[in-house]
C-alpha cells in the first residue's frame, strides 16, 4: 500500500517537473509503435502508403491517445489547465478590441455589484468592527402607545431608566448607554464642531478592541453622577489634528463646555456601534451629562436623550431576556407615573421591550435607506446579468466563427469535453480580468456611495475580505454564465458537415442568441421602468412645496458652550444677531426663530373655545418669528395678514395658523379672528390674524403635524440666539462673512455656526435622490449593453445572410424590402422583450410602492416611454447593419465562399 502511494507520488512529481521530457518520451513511444506496425504491413506486401494507412487505422486517433495517456499519468488536469490558460491569454491578446469590450462590460457589472455589496453588507450584515460575540449583543427598543393608541417605538431613553434596567433585570450581563452628538472641540480660533460619542464605560467593553495608544476609560471614571473628564480620541481625528503624535496623552482638550484630558486613542477604523459616522472622540457619559445637566440628571425621568445596548447572559434565550426587559421597563414606568401622574395609566401605555439587532437598518426603526440600498443591489445584479448575456452572446458569435477550427480539432481527436473546458477557461480568464477591473471601478464609485449612505467616507475601505470574497463569487458565476452556452454549443453539430460547409453558412443557427437578446431586452425594460419611476418620484420630491424656500436660506445659531447668559443678556444677543445679520451685504431678510425644519421643533398645548380635547387629537408645532419671518422663509400668507411691527409685547396677542390647522379646528368656518389660548387654558386669547400655507417641518409625509406662528416679542421666553437669513445670490458665499460678523457678538466661549438650510433638509430627501441616481445610472448602463448586444447580433446575422440577401436583391427585391426584413426581425425580438419586461415590472410594482413619493408605480406614461425608447434603439441597432447589407453587390455576394 505504502509502496503504491510512493510510486504514485514519484510518478506525479516527475510528471509535473519533467513535462517536456515526458511529452517527448510519449511521442517516441507512439511513433515507435506506428513504425513497427507499418513495417509489419509492408512485410505482408502492402505498399508503404497503404501500410502507413493501415497502421494508423489500427491505432486510432493519435491525439486522443496522447490525451488519454496524459490523463492516465494523472497530471493532465493541472497540465491542461495551464495549457488552456496560456491558450486563452494568447487568443485574447490577439483580439484586443474583443477583450477590452468584454473586460469593460464585465468590469462594470462586477464593479457595480462589489460596490453595492460593500454598502449593503455594512448596512445590514457585518457586525460593527470589534464587537464581541455579536449573537448576544442587542440594541434596546421600547414599544409604547401614544395618542389615539398609536404604536410608537423609541430607541432613546433617559439615564434613570438605564439605572432602573440595570438594577431590575437578571438576564443581562451588561447595559451600555451612548449617544453621538455634534459638539464644539478646541478653543478660540481653533474651535470646530465634530462628532463625539458620549458613552458609558460598559459601552467600550462591548467591543474586543485595544486602544492604538494609551488606554480606554473604565467604570471608575464613569461613576454616577460626575465621571472623570477624560477623553479617548478617534484614530482619524488623532491623525488629522495631532499628526498621530504619541505625546498627545495627557494633553487637555476642550469639548463642549468642559476640559478633558486625553488618556488614549481608539484603534483604526473603530466607530463604536457605528451608524452615526466616525466619532472624533469618546467621553464618559456621566462626565458629559453632569456638565450639561448638573448632578440631578440620574434622578429624573425627563431627559430622554441616549440610546442603549444590552448583552444577554450566556444560556438565556432572547425571548426570556425580552420578557425580563419588559418587566423591568414596566417597573420603571410605574415609578415614572408615580412622579408624573400626567402620563396616565400604565396599562394604557402598552410598554414592551424589544431586543433588536445591532444594525439599526435591520431593526424596528429601519429607515428607507436600507430598503433602497437592497433594491439597488438587486439592480446591480440585474446589470451583471445583462452584461453576462452580452458577453455570452459575443462568445457565441466567436464560437460560431471558430466552428471550423473546433471541428478540425475534434477531427484530430481532441475530445468535446476538452474543447468545452477550454472555452470555460477562456471565459473564466476574462471574468477574472473583468473582476479586477470591477474592483478598481468599485473603489472609485465607493467614496460617492458611502458618502451617500454611510456618513463615513473618511474610513472608506471598500476592498475588505468580505467584498473580495463576494467579488470572487461574482467572477465565478459570471464565468459560468458566459461560458456555459458556448461550451454546450460546441458539443452539438456534425463535424463533417461543418468542415464541408462554407465559412458563411452554418448548418444550424444558434437558438441561444435570440433568447439571450430577449432576456436582455426584458431586464433592460424592467430597470428603465424602475429608473423612470425613481426619477419622477424624485422630481415630485424636489417640486414638492414644503411651504417655505430652502435654497436661498442660511441658518445661523449661537452655541453658548456652557456660557450661561441671563435672560436679558440672551435677549440682547439674539436681537443684535438679527440686526447684524440684516446689515450683511446680500442678505435680503432675516428673522429670529425657535423651530428649524427637520432639525428641532417646539410644540406646546393649545386650548380653543368650543373645540374639545384639541391636544389629544392633533399635534401642534409652533414657531416664533420676527416681523420679516414669512418674507424670509418665502411662506405665502393665504388670507389675512402676517404679524409685523404693529404686534409688540404690549399689544393684543396674535397668531398666524397653517392652512390645515384652520381646517381641522374650524371646519367650514372662517378662522380669522378666532381665539386660541397658547400654553395653558387660563391664558388670554390670541387672535388669528392670518392663514399661511402649510409648512412641512418634520417630514414630507406626516399628516399629523399642524403648525402655527407667533411674533417672537409676544412669546413668554426670551428669543433663542438663532436666525434665518434670506440671501440673494450664492448662499455659500455669504456664510463666512455672516459667521465672522456674528461671532464678534459672542460672549466668552460661545461660538456661531452657519449652515445652509438645505444641509438640514437634504438628508430627508437622500434615499429618493440616491435611488433615482442609481437607477438612472444602472438603467442607462443596461440600455447601453442591450443596444450593443442587439447591434452586434443583427450585424452578425446580416453578415451570415450576405449570400441570401444578395440573392434577394439579384432577384429584384427592393432595398426597402430587405431593410424591412432585417429591421423587423430585430424588432420582433426586442418587442418580445418589451412585453415580458412590462409584465415583469407590473408584477413587481407592488414592492416599489413604499419607495415612491406621490408616484404611482404603474404609471402608464413611464411604461410607454421606456417601451418606445427600447424599440427605437432596436430600430437604430438594426438599421445600421441592414443598410450596409443593402449595399452588397449581388454578384460578389453570390460568389462568396
Amino acid at each position, binding site marked *: 500500500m505504502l*509502496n*503504491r502511494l*510512493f*510510486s*504514485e507520488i514519484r*510518478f*506525479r512529481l516527475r510528471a509535473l517537473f519533467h513535462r517536456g521530457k515526458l511529452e517527448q*518520451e*510519449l511521442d*517516441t*513511444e*507512439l511513433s*515507435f*509503435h506506428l*513504425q*513497427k*506496425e507499418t513495417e*509489419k504491413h509492408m512485410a505482408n506486401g502492402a505498399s508503404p502508403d497503404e501500410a502507413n494507412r493501415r497502421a*494508423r*487505422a*489500427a*491505432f*486510432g*486517433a*493519435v491525439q*486522443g*491517445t496522447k490525451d*488519454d*495517456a496524459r*490523463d*492516465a*499519468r*494523472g497530471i493532465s488536469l493541472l497540465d491542461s489547465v495551464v495549457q488552456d490558460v496560456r491558450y486563452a491569454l494568447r487568443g485574447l491578446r490577439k483580439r484586443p478590441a474583443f477583450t477590452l469590450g468584454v473586460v469593460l462590460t464585465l468590469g462594470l457589472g462586477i464593479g457595480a455589484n462589489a460596490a453595492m455589496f460593500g454598502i449593503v453588507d455594512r448596512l445590514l450584515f457585518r457586525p460593527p468592527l470589534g464587537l464581541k460575540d455579536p449573537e448576544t449583543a442587542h440594541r434596546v427598543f421600547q414599544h409604547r402607545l401614544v395618542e389615539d393608541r398609536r404604536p410608537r417605538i423609541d430607541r432613546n431613553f433617559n439615564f434613570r431608566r438605564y439605572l432602573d434596567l440595570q438594577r431590575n433585570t437578571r438576564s443581562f450581563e451588561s447595559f451600555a448607554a451612548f449617544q453621538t452628538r455634534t459638539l464644539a472641540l478646541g478653543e478660540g480660533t481653533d474651535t470646530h464642531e465634530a462628532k463625539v460619542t458620549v458613552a458609558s464605560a460598559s459601552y467600550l467593553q462591548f467591543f474586543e478592541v485595544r486602544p492604538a495608544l494609551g488606554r480606554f476609560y473604565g467604570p471608575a471614571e464613569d461613576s454616577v453622577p460626575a465621571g472623570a473628564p477624560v477623553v479617548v480620541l478617534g484614530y482619524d481625528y488623532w491623525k488629522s489634528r495631532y499628526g498621530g503624535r504619541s505625546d498627545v496623552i495627557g494633553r487637555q482638550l476642550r469639548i463642549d463646555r468642559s476640559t478633558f484630558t486625553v488618556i488614549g486613542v481608539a484603534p483604526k477604523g473603530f466607530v463604536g456601534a457605528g451608524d452615526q459616522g466616525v466619532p472624533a472622540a469618546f467621553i464618559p457619559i456621566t462626565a458629559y451629562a453632569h456638565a450639561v445637566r448638573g448632578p440631578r440628571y440620574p434622578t429624573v425621568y425627563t431627559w430622554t436623550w441616549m440610546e442603549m445596548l444590552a448583552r444577554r447572559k450566556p444560556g438565556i434565550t432572547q425571548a426570556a431576556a425580552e420578557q425580563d426587559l419588559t418587566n423591568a421597563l414596566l417597573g420603571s414606568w410605574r415609578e415614572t407615573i408615580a412622579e408624573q401622574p400626567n402620563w396616565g395609566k400604565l396599562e394604557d401605555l402598552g410598554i414592551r421591550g424589544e431586543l433588536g439587532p445591532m444594525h439599526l437598518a435591520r431593526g424596528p426603526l429601519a429607515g428607507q435607506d436600507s430598503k433602497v440600498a437592497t433594491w439597488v443591489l438587486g439592480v446591480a445584479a440585474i446589470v451583471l446579468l445583462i452584461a453576462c448575456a452580452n458577453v455570452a452572446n459575443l462568445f457565441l458569435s466567436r464560437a460560431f466563427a471558430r466552428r471550423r477550427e473546433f471541428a478540425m480539432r475534434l*477531427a*484530430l*481527436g481532441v475530445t468535446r469535453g476538452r474543447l468545452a473546458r477550454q472555452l470555460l477557461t477562456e471565459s473564466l480568464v476574462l471574468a477574472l480580468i473583468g473582476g479586477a477591473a470591477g474592483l478598481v471601478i468599485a473603489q472609485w464609485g465607493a467614496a460617492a456611495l458611502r458618502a451617500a449612505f454611510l456618513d463615513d467616507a473618511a474610513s472608506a475601505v471598500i476592498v475588505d475580505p468580505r467584498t473580495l470574497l463576494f467579488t470572487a463569487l461574482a467572477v465565478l458565476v459570471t464565468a459560468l454564465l458566459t461560458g456555459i452556452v458556448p461550451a454546450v454549443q460546441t458539443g452539438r453539430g456534425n*463535424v*463533417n458537415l461543418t*468542415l464541408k460547409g462554407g465559412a458563411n453558412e452554418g448548418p444550424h443557427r444558434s437558438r441561444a442568441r435570440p433568447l439571450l437578446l430577449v432576456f436582455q431586452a426584458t431586464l433592460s425594460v424592467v430597470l428603465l421602468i424602475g429608473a423612470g419611476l425613481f426619477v419622477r418620484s424624485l422630481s415630485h420630491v424636489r417640486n414638492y412645496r414644503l411651504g417655505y424656500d430652502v435654497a436661498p436660506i442660511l441658518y445661523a445659531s449661537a452655541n453658548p458652550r456652557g456660557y450661561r447668559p441671563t435672560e436679558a443678556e440672551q435677549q440682547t444677543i439674539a436681537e443684535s444677531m438679527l440686526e447684524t445679520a440684516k446689515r450683511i451685504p446680500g442678505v435680503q431678510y432675516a428673522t429670529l426663530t425657535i423651530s428649524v425644519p427637520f432639525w428641532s421643533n417646539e410644540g406646546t398645548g393649545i386650548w380653543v373655545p368650543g373645540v374639545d380635547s384639541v391636544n389629544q387629537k392633533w399635534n401642534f408645532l409652533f414657531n416664533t418669528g420676527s416681523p420679516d419671518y414669512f418674507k424670509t422663509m418665502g411662506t405665502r400668507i393665504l388670507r389675512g395678514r402676517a404679524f409685523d411691527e404693529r404686534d409688540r409685547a404690549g399689544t393684543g396677542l396674535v397668531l398666524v395658523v397653517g392652512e390645515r390647522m384652520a381646517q381641522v379646528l374650524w371646519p367650514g368656518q372662517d378662522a380669522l379672528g378666532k381665539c386660541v389660548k397658547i400654553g395653558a387654558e387660563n391664558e388670554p386669547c390670541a387672535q388669528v390674524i392670518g392663514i399661511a400655507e402649510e409648512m412641512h417641518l418634520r417630514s414630507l409625509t406626516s399628516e399629523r403635524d399642524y403648525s402655527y406662528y407667533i411674533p417672537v416679542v409676544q412669546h413668554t421666553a426670551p428669543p433663542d440666539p438663532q436666525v434665518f437669513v434670506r440671501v440673494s445670490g450664492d448662499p455659500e458665499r455669504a456664510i463666512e462673512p455672516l459667521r465672522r460678523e456674528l461671532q464678534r457678538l459672542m460672549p466668552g466661549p460661545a461660538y456661531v455656526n452657519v449652515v445652509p438650510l438645505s444641509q438640514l433638509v437634504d438628508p430627508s430627501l437622500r434615499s429618493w435622490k440616491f435611488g433615482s441616481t442609481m437607477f438612472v445610472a444602472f438603467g442607462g448602463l443596461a440600455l447601453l449593453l442591450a443596444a450593443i448586444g442587439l447591434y452586434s447580433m443583427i450585424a452578425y446575422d446580416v453578415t451570415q445572410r450576405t449570400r441570401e440577401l444578395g440573392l434577394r436583391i439579384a432577384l429584384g427585391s427592393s432595398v426597402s424590402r430587405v431593410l424591412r426584413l432585417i429591421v423587423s426581425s430585430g424588432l420582433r425580438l426586442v418587442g418580445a422583450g418589451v412585453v415580458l419586461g412590462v409584465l415583469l415590472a407590473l408584477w413587481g410594482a407592488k414592492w416599489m410602492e413604499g419607495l415612491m413619493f406621490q408616484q404611482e408605480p404603474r404609471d402608464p406614461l413611464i411604461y410607454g416611454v421606456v417601451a418606445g425608447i427600447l424599440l427605437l434603439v432596436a430600430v437604430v441597432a438594426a438599421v445600421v447593419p441592414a443598410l450596409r447589407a443593402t449595399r452588397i453587390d449581388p454578384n460578389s455576394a453570390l460568389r462568396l465562399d
Partner: protein
Amino acid sequence: MIGLFLSKRKGNAVTDHLDLPQGTLDLLILKAVSLGPLHGWAISERLHDVTRATLQIPQGSLYPALHRLERRGWIRAEWGSSDNNRKAKFYELTSSGKKQLASEAKAWARLTNAVGLVLDMS
C-alpha cells in the same frame, strides 16, 4: 482520411471481433508482460496472436492503460533498444504487479466459473 479516423474513434466494431469487457485489458497486459519485458507494440502483437485475433483491442487504448499500470506501480518501464538499435520502452512486472496479477487472475477464474455454472443450468 479524417472521416476514417472518426469512425474508428466512434468504435464501429468490425464483425466477428469481440469487444473487450471493461477492466480486463489491465489483466491481459499484466499477463503479457509477466513472461518478460516487452515494448508496447510487442504486447499488442502478443495479445493479437494469442487470442487468435478474436479480441478487438484498439492499439491506441493500450498506452493509456500501460501508463496507468505504471503509475500504480504494477509495471515498471525502462528504455532499451529493440532490433535495429531503435529506442523502445520496455515494460516488466514488478513484485506488487505479480501479486495483483495473481489476485486478478483468481478473481477472473471465479467469475468465469460462476458464469459458466449459470449458463450450464438445465
